[in-house]
């Protein structure tokens, strides 16, 4: 009985070892394959890897592009991560990724690191995102807010405690505030444009990185006010009321025409010039991106640019050879 058990144990260890060897064998094979595929085209067939990382705001657009592109080029392997704009640039400036999604322009500090590592890149504007200010649908007194009023509400140590504190004719009820958390690019942009200094805001409001939490908060409270990305409003139109800012309501048209200021911001992708020049699959993907942006961007809840703007940016990239 003893030896039987022992035999069983040994056979188990052996089979484990075999499985490990199989894994290792597999991996070295695929490793070779991808090396061969790097940036080569076989009879018009694209293959190889495209690595994208960066902003979670831009993610839905790049995801949609990757999805469509991969339908045409089955052998191209695209991965899209969501490390955030800053986290994406950290990898991009080290040369780890081909494309970086960004909800703000690259900072000088980040650009310097790219320069030190010899990474050349092009910034491409791909869409506009409007930041919308929202209240509960039962709120029948707010029909407009000015930028000054927004500042008064949101600035650090704000004296606004009730709606009456904003305009005397509004109800004497406590105002409940909802906004994105400090890790969000929306937060950075809003504070910079409204308060005048990035990152400065009053502290007594409900903050969440998950915009759906904000939607639910505002939808469930008559005296709530909050702000977040326009795309989240579009999906929740029936439970929220949007507030015009300085008399302009954010719509696809006002954002595209640049009338909805200051609360609309551009979204970018950053393309490594080296990858663009030397990797056929990256070049084709970026071309595809810019040619189809006008169709695909609206499907993700953002506002596209004019086709001429996309074309011009593509030309600049192509001439950067």
């Amino acid at each position, binding site marked *: 009985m003893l030896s039987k058990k022992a035999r069983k144990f040994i056979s188990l260890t052996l089979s484990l070892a075999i499985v490990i060897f199989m894994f290792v064998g597999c991996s070295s094979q695929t490793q070779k394959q991808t090396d061969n595929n790097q940036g080569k085209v076989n009879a018009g067939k694209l293959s190889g890897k495209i690595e994208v990382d960066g902003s979670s705001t831009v993610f839905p657009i790049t*995801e949609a592009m990757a999805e469509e592109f991969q339908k045409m080029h089955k052998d191209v*392997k695209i*991965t899209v991560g969501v490390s955030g704009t800053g986290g994406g640039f950290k990898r991009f400036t080290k040369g780890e990724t081909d494309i970086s999604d960004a909800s703000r322009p690259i900072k000088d500090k980040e650009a310097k690191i790219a320069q030190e590592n010899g990474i050349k890149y092009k910034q491409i504007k791909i869409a506009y995102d409007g930041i919308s200010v929202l209240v509960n649908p039962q709120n029948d007194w707010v029909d407009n807010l000015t930028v000054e009023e927004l500042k008064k509400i949101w600035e650090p140590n704000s004296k606004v405690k009730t709606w009456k504190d904003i305009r005397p004719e509004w109800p004497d009820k406590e105002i409940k505030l909802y906004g994105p958390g400090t890790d969000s690019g929306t937060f950075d942009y809003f504070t910079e444009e409204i308060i005048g200094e990035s990152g400065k805001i009053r502290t007594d409001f409900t903050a969440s990185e998950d915009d759906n939490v904000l939607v639910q908060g505002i939808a469930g409270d008559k005296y709530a006010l909050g702000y977040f990305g326009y795309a989240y409003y579009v999906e929740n139109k029936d439970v929220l009321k949007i507030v015009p800012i300085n008399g302009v309501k954010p719509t696809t048209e006002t954002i595209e025409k640049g009338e909805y200021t200051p609360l609309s911001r551009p979204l970018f992708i950053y393309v490594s010039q080296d990858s663009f020049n030397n990797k056929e699959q990256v070049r084709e993907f970026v071309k595809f991106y810019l040619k189809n942006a006008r169709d695909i961007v609206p499907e993700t809840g953002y506002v596209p640019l004019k086709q001429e703007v996309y074309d011009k940016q593509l030309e600049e990239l192509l001439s950067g050879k």
Partner: protein
Amino acid sequence: MTNLQKRKLQDKIFHILVLSATLFGLVVLVILLKEILNDGLKWINIDFFRNFASRFPRKSGIKAPLFGSLWIIGLTALFAFPIGVGSALYLEEYLPKNWLTNLIQVNISNLAGVPSIVFGILGLGIFVNTLGFGRSILSGALTLALLILPVIIVSAQEAIKSVPKELKQGAYALGCTKWQMITGVLLPYAMPGILTGTILAIARALGETAPLLMVGAVTFIAYTPEGIFDSFTTLPMQIYNWTSRPKVDFHHIAAAAIIVLLILLLGINSLAIYLRNRYQSRMSR
């Protein structure tokens, strides 16, 4: 009120207290399950398993994260089980008991309570950067293996400790070598406990997101891994991404993915129970 009545009342109150303690967890679980099943069940069909992620909820599927999770978990088990059981054997059977052993013991127990993100940072430093495995399945699995090793070691140690001395001494008395005693008596006897601990640890690894985010699990990927150096995503990552999207339907497919994850966890746990019972019944024979 007589003394007896008082004591009986005390007894009843305690009974109600422990009952409500149990119910608290159960009720929350039932509500959670009901919500998830309501939202997600109608989204589960064959295409849900065959498709990759898409911007249209209806066309979205969990092929990539499901494969990613299975690869990661398989490899994690492969790394963590032999190393964990080996360490436990060494600590219990070979290492002499002294202050150094105690120090090691305390450290291992301590590691079991370290937040998982810390292991993620460690994995990023060691496996991704220093050893150059990149943001791959291998790095992810090794990181998770590190994460669950303390739990496996501790539970394996407990299982080994529970083996009666008489059995071990009996084996020696019959002339067994240490190797024969361990493989013939100790391990078979301790195996149910070891397996239970291991599989519960692996179930925990299956639900982890934080360390995998650190070692670079991506969010969109439209191919299944072919080797241990490929990029990957896992079910918890995909669920997190879907729940944070604006479209309500994405929340529903997130619920559907949660159902799949729950079934997977349930499967792993029942495997644990099955294996334990099998070994136990073999022991009692």
